[in-house]
């Protein structure tokens, strides 16, 4: 594990890998976004209760899923950096945070835009909405910590501890609609149960969800390599790379 992480986790190696992979993820994401938007806005039917307002879920639900997924990935990367001192893992965690915060913000904002006409209110303090808001604060807290602590190593360590402690919020968000009586509805997709959403709506939702994941993969790779370049700006490989780029 240790040798594996250090061979493939060298900043220089990761930088090249990111250069190779990010465009592919980005391109695939753009294609799926085009297909997903076409399905979400034109092909899918209106809902029997929400009418055309249902189309908000095609951006709301993937954002909400990503807000949880990115947090788990960020905490895992932070943990790897904490234990094995892998620079790339630290940079990855640091690069994930603003994206996770953006997804959380989108989940809250689009949910609010759905809630106003459907529920009759922009916001309620129920367990689901409150725990998702706490998630946004966790991301913002992590980012504030990264800016506040000048030494990268210390910042990464403090951030990783915060991220790992904050992990308890993830199951709370997920199960909040089952554990407490919330205004937010229960899960539509559950394990071992048929989906409570019609196929004509499920397909565009899933296409959008995969588009969001590929978008994250592409952007986080670019962000991580920027972090590494900044961190290793005095190393030979960074100097040579800049010279190569300038020559082009």
């Amino acid at each position: 594990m240790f040798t594996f992480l250090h061979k493939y986790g060298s900043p220089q190696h990761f930088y090249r890998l990111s250069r190779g992979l990010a465009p592919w993820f980005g391109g695939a994401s753009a294609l799926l976004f085009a297909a997903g938007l076409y399905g979400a806005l034109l092909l899918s039917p209106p809902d029997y209760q929400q009418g055309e307002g249902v189309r908000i879920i095609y951006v709301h639900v993937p954002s909400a899923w990503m807000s949880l997924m990115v947090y788990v990935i960020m905490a895992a990367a932070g943990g790897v950096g904490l234990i094995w001192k892998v620079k790339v893992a630290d940079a990855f965690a640091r690069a994930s945070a603003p994206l996770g915060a953006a997804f959380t913000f989108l989940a809250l904002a689009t949910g609010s835009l759905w809630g106003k006409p459907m529920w009759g209110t922009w916001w309620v303090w129920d367990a689901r909405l409150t725990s998702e808001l706490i998630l946004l604060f966790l991301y913002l807290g992590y980012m504030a910590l990264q800016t506040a602590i000048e030494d990268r190593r210390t910042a990464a360590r403090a951030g990783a501890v915060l991220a790992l402690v904050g992990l308890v919020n993830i199951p709370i968000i997920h199960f909040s609609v089952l554990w407490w009586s919330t205004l937010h509805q229960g899960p539509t997709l559950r394990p071992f149960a048929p989906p409570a959403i019609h196929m004509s709506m499920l397909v565009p939702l899933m296409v959008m969800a995969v588009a969001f994941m590929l978008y994250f993969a592409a952007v986080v790779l670019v962000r991580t390599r920027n972090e590494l370049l900044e961190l290793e700006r005095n190393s030979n490989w960074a100097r040579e790379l800049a010279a190569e780029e300038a020559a082009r």
Partner: protein
Amino acid sequence: MNPRRRRIVIAVAVMLIGVGTAAALALRAFQENLLYFYSPTLVAAGEAPANRKFRIGGLVVPGSVMRNPDTLAVSFALTDTLHQVRVNYEGILPDLFREGQGIVANGELLADGTFGATEVLAKHDENYMPPEVADALKAAGSSLDYSKFKHQQ
């Protein structure tokens, strides 16, 4: 793993378990406050707070909705299939308000046993389908499903 790393792993694990347990205990203790709304059965049992605003949640009883044609006043019964509470409200109803729909109303229990609401919110269920499919399901016959409204009581 060298001893230093092992110590960090153990420290993080202990912290996670500690914070997790603390959070779980705190949430159990605060369960009452996290209850977003009371069911008509809880209200009938006298467990809802008196002389204080609280929220009541249930399904709108089909055929119980009465509207005043001149004002925005509306009256309807809420049920959890065991008990019913009549709710009076004056104001704009959310788009999802309809008979059989899950509703959360904020207000006060009045002396006559009715609920005077100052706010009515619609609770959506987790079902998404085109109108044609819903019509087909309705034709096949389905009754009020309270379990979908609230998973756990």
